[in-house]
């Protein structure tokens, strides 16, 4: 569709203002966005807060032309425009940086930039392009090596390159979708600081989607809060307290609070011990080597690290999905092979990340999914051969009631549940009965506040009840809140250990980033 403009294209390096007027988006009978009017003045650093499903990404997708709003309009620099496609959005200088990287890993930074242009010549004159790029980068606050393949860059550098790419494409308004979720605290601060500098110089308007209050506090000028598709509040960041923002986000829901931490008995015996365990990593080129890791009964040991430093492999080693090339894993002083017999005998339970993909059979019913731990256990505890459907339904009904899993029916496929309820169902299954060892990976990824609070409270309860808990998480705040001890993983090894209460975030961050 041709776009008729009555004004020249926005000038690169010149911030524009963006305003939505009564923007509404309905999907069938469901209103994802309800009359949202927001103004993002030029050269500001704006934050958009809201829980999952609050309508943040719907709003942004309407602005970026991925969705056509049911009603309402969009103004850029005070003039109404029609953005019918992402291509139109690009013409108006609107750009977006996604949560996950969109760069081609095998190409260099320079190649990534050049091929991302809307019109790339059939034959690229690289000498000329490199010259132009060097000039362009001279004017940028970011310092990124453009001649190395993107896969060799650190996460922070990649994220900066994503932003540089948008600036290179001449964007004047940039949406950052949870831009720091893959960065260390130091990288996040540096990156946001640089972006903030650009807004202060009037080169860029930024709208950042986030759920980290401290980032919003530190970098944003204004904040808007969405809940269930509605604009609940907005204003200058300094006029709002964190508690006020949180209250607006969540509404009148009481959050579960953590039980008090019962002191771990100093004589508690180690339940899990990993001894010189070595396994290949995902690429098969490097190894993950856990020299010595022990978790005692009644303690939570947190494993921190930036995504991709061997935490997934560690979880897989413990789940029996990644055979060891050497070393051993001991549970209760016996070699542990993660077989069904082993898990039952040692009462080992597992809560993997992204539970729908890793802990559920999505098309099987809620009742069946809740029965995974129990289906082959006879009433007396021995193995049984006959599957009892009435027993399955009773089991499921009691778990659903205990853990308040919201489902329209026990016969619904578990994939029909919301993320928080899938996670509740998995918790119900894994935390029911005696648990001696609990292995948890990123349990709260992508869940809303009340689900997160409840899940953390459940984990703490399991710990207080005497379970040994190994918590692998990319969320440092979560680790600091729950753990007794924190280990840092970097490049497949455990490089640092500290007590959670005396932990220094800066030191942990430095180790996460590989400075040890």
């Amino acid at each position, binding site marked *: 569709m041709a776009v008729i403009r009555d004004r020249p294209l926005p000038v690169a390096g010149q911030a524009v203002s963006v305003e939505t007027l009564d923007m509404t988006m309905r999907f069938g009978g469901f209103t994802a966005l309800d009359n949202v009017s927001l103004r993002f003045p030029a050269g500001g650093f704006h934050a958009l807060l809201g829980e999952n499903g609050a309508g943040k990404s719907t709003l942004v997708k309407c602005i970026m032309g991925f969705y056509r709003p049911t009603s309402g309009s969009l103004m850029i620099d005070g003039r109404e425009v029609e953005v019918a496609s992402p291509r139109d959005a690009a013409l108006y200088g609107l750009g977006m940086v996604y949560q996950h990287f969109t760069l081609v890993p095998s190409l260099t930074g320079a190649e990534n930039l050049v091929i991302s242009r809307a019109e790339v010549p059939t034959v690229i004159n690289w000498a000329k392009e490199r010259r132009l790029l060097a000039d362009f980068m001279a004017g940028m606050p970011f310092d990124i090596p453009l001649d190395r393949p993107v896969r060799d860059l650190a996460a922070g550098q990649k994220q900066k390159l994503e932003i540089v790419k948008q600036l290179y494409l001449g964007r004047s308004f940039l949406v950052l979708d949870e831009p720091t979720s893959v960065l260390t605290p130091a990288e996040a601060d540096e990156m946001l600081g640089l972006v903030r500098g650009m807004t202060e110089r009037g080169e860029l308007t930024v709208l950042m989607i986030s759920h980290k209050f401290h980032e919003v506090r530190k970098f944003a000028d204004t904040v808007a809060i969405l809940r269930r598709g509605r604009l609940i509040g907005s204003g200058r960041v300094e006029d709002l307290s964190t508690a006020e923002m949180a209250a607006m986000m969540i509404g009148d829901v*009481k959050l579960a609070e953590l039980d008090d931490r019962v002191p771990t008995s100093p004589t508690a015996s180690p339940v899990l011990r990993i001894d010189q365990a070595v396994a290949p990593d995902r690429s098969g080129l490097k190894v993950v080597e856990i020299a010595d890791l022990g978790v005692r009964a009644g303690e939570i040991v947190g494993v921190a690290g930036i995504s991709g430093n061997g935490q997934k492999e560690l979880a897989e080693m413990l789940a029996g999905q990644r055979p060891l090339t050497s070393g051993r894993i001991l549970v209760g002083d016996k070699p542990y092979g993660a077989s*069904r017999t*082993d898990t039952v005998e040692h009462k080992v339970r597992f809560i993997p990340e992204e539970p729908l993909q890793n802990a559920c*059979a999505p098309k*099987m019913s809620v009742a069946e999914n809740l029965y*995974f731990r129990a289906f082959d256990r006879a009433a007396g505890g021995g193995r049984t*051969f006959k599957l009892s459907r009435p027993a399955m339904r009773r089991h499921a009904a009691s778990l*659903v009631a205990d853990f308040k899993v919201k489902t*329209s029916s026990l016969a619904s496929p578990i994939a029909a549940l919301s993320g928080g309820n899938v996670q509740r169902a998995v918790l119900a299954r894994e935390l029911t009965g005696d648990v001696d060892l609990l292995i948890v990976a990123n349990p709260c990824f992508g869940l809303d506040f009340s689900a997160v609070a409840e899940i953390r409270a459940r984990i703490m*309860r399991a710990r207080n009840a005497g379970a040994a808990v190994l918590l692998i998480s990319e969320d440092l705040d979560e680790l600091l809140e729950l753990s007794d001890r924190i280990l840092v993983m970097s490049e497949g090894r455990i490089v640092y250990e500290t007590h959670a209460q005396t932990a220094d975030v800066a030191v942990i961050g430095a180790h996460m980033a590989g400075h040890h």
Partner: protein
Amino acid sequence: MTIGIDNLSEAAVPAAGSWAGHLAEWTARRLEPVVIGLGAILIGLVLFSLFILALGKSPLLLFQLMYTGGFASWFSIQNSLSRAAPLLLTALCVALPARLGLVVIGGEGALALGGVAAAAAALPLAHLLPPVPTLAGIALAAMLAGGIWIGCVGALRHYRGVNETISSLLMSYIAIAVMNQLIEGPLRDPASLNKPSTLPLPADYLIGPLPGMDVHWGFAIGIATCVLSYLLIETTTWGFAARVAGGNTRAAEVQGLPVGRLIVGFTALAGACAGLAGMIEVAAVQGSANGSLIAGYGYTGILVAFLARHNPLAIIPVAILIGGIDASGGLIQRRMGLPDATVLVLQGTLFVVILACETLYGRFKPFNPDLWKRDL
């Protein structure tokens, strides 16, 4: 301070739905595959009619002949049932691995090997034992041959990461070549001149007809195997474990389930079913193993299994239906001057439409109770 978790989120426990509500939900979930399946068949028939029209023939006459040839008389019904017998078993060869998430399409090869193994085992056994133990023995031989063959496909899949669809198809060609090699070489009956065959089974060692009909016992064996397979999948913990592994391998591993053993076990069982089909073809129809075993039963079984959505009980009516369509091929050829392969065009059309309609599941509100209570 501690706040009990139990009184926190106002999340509703599923409404203690009324008896009628449960019944409606149960019916809706069971009706969905039936309605979508029949709808797909209808679309397939319309497309096929266009094809027949393009050939300048009347689709109505063709459908009428199909009915006459397949189901109109006691004779044609018996013919259809006889043709359905091997389809029941080759469809299981697809349906059982499918419950583990594997698409195995090599039933034809397992059937061929089963047939040859049965014929080979018949030679020594028929000299030593009376008919019934002999038949049991050759059935066992056939199931072993088919089971090992498709079990290898499962093992390759689990331990070496070889795509099971490709490997089963390619191994099918190998199996057919091995069969040809054997019936033209070491196992050949010197008396079979034009059509290389193994030594025929003695007449009293053949599988006879069911009492009061012209349909051989193979049909009853097929039905029984379908029912047993259904019971295995739905009422045993093995079947449950297999469905978990098929629903999500990673989740099954996290639960400590022996995914490798389940895959090899179920694929071997599937191969055994196809091998048994080969044995029945040899002992009830052909009398010896020869090239006629390769009649496409293995491939038609794929269609049957997909139409039945890999539900062993649903395989029974579907196999009879497809058996009937198969049976009408000759009549269509004679009366309409259309080639025998016309029914294959119909089967192919149906297959493509069925696969395309897989994406419709869960889209129709009347069949999806999860959409009833939500006002989306």
